[in-house]
């Protein structure tokens, strides 16, 4: 039997809470079956730090709250054939976007200076820290997104079904995903 080429899947959590990734892991032992059909590339699950240039599917959790998020999102778009927005934060900014009506300086002042219990606080300014954006943005405002999987978080089952439906449309090769269910 000739072995089918595995789909390369990359995932990342931008301005999200990792709840979507946890929910993805809720597919439990079906992950083993899935792994016969896919391999993880860049992902918090593998700790690989950059995308291979030939990823089939990129799954993005979370919106954009800082400059690094934008950088990572662009890297995913460049290297993944299909990009999926997973969960409310990626789709509409979600919880982090609830800061959007407040000026960034007001938020930083309150968090690091004026909250009760803070003595001589300072706003972190290490050059290694990515700069926060003035507002949190959904990812489709920056790159083209092929499929959306709503929910906060989408359930494990939905994760599979959603990915299944989205990749299923791309042709027979990607049928591996539904088969894995």
């Amino acid at each position: 039997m000739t072995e089918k080429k595995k789909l390369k899947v990359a995932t990342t959590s931008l301005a999200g809470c990792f709840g979507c990734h946890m929910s993805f892991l809720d597919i439990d032992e079906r992950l083993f079956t899935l792994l016969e059909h896919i391999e993880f590339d860049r992902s918090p699950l593998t700790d690989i730090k950059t995308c291979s240039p030939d990823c089939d599917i990129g799954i993005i959790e979370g919106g954009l709250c800082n400059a690094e998020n934008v950088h990572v999102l662009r890297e995913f778009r460049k290297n993944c054939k299909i990009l999926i927005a997973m969960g409310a934060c990626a789709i509409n900014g979600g919880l982090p976007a609830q800061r959007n009506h407040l000026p960034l300086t007001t938020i930083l002042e309150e968090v690091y200076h004026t909250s009760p219990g803070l003595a001589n606080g300072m706003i972190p300014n290490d050059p290694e820290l990515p700069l926060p954006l003035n507002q949190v943005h959904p990812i489709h405002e920056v790159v083209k997104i092929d499929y959306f999987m709503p929910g906060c978080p989408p359930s494990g089952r939905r994760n599979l079904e959603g990915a299944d439906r989205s990749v299923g449309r791309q042709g027979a090769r990607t049928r591996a995903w539904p088969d894995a269910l």
Partner: protein
Amino acid sequence: MSYTFTLDGKVIPFADGQTIIQAASAAGVFIPHLCYHPEFKPHGSCKLCTVRVNGRHTASCTMRASAGMVVESETEEINAERRALTQMLFVEGNHFCPSCEQSGNCQLQATAYHLGMMSPHYDHFFPNRPVDASHPEVLLEFNRCILCSLCVRASRDVDGKNVFALSGRGIKTHLIVNAKSGAAGRYGLRAG
């Protein structure tokens, strides 16, 4: 005397003076809508209830039924337009369902589900709309307001009080309270 028209091929009876949406709902056929409420005069502003009547787009909540009309509602084209309108409503306001008390009992949310809205599609406005919490019993949550004018009609036509009105034009349209300070707490508004 009874008349009929067809809605997506189904024969719908109607009485004199009934609008398309009234006759459809009496016959158990659902047409998506947001600013229409059976107990108030139609406003015809959200356009979610748009149907095609004899080939022309029109709001089914304001259009009177007439005998022999051919009405189309559940077509892919019309539902795509309804979905686009719903997406615009979502991005123009701040509709954060997970923290909203109305979640699960919200016509805007239900409409988005009904139309299979998977994403906002457009860029979010994230407008700054402070809530009006000046009244002891009523909280005005402007972030969720879609300008359906149901509160305006309820207050004006049923309570005879004229507490609310829509002011401004286009994207600047907003809800105002009939009080000098503009805040609900200054108006003798009573809940219940």
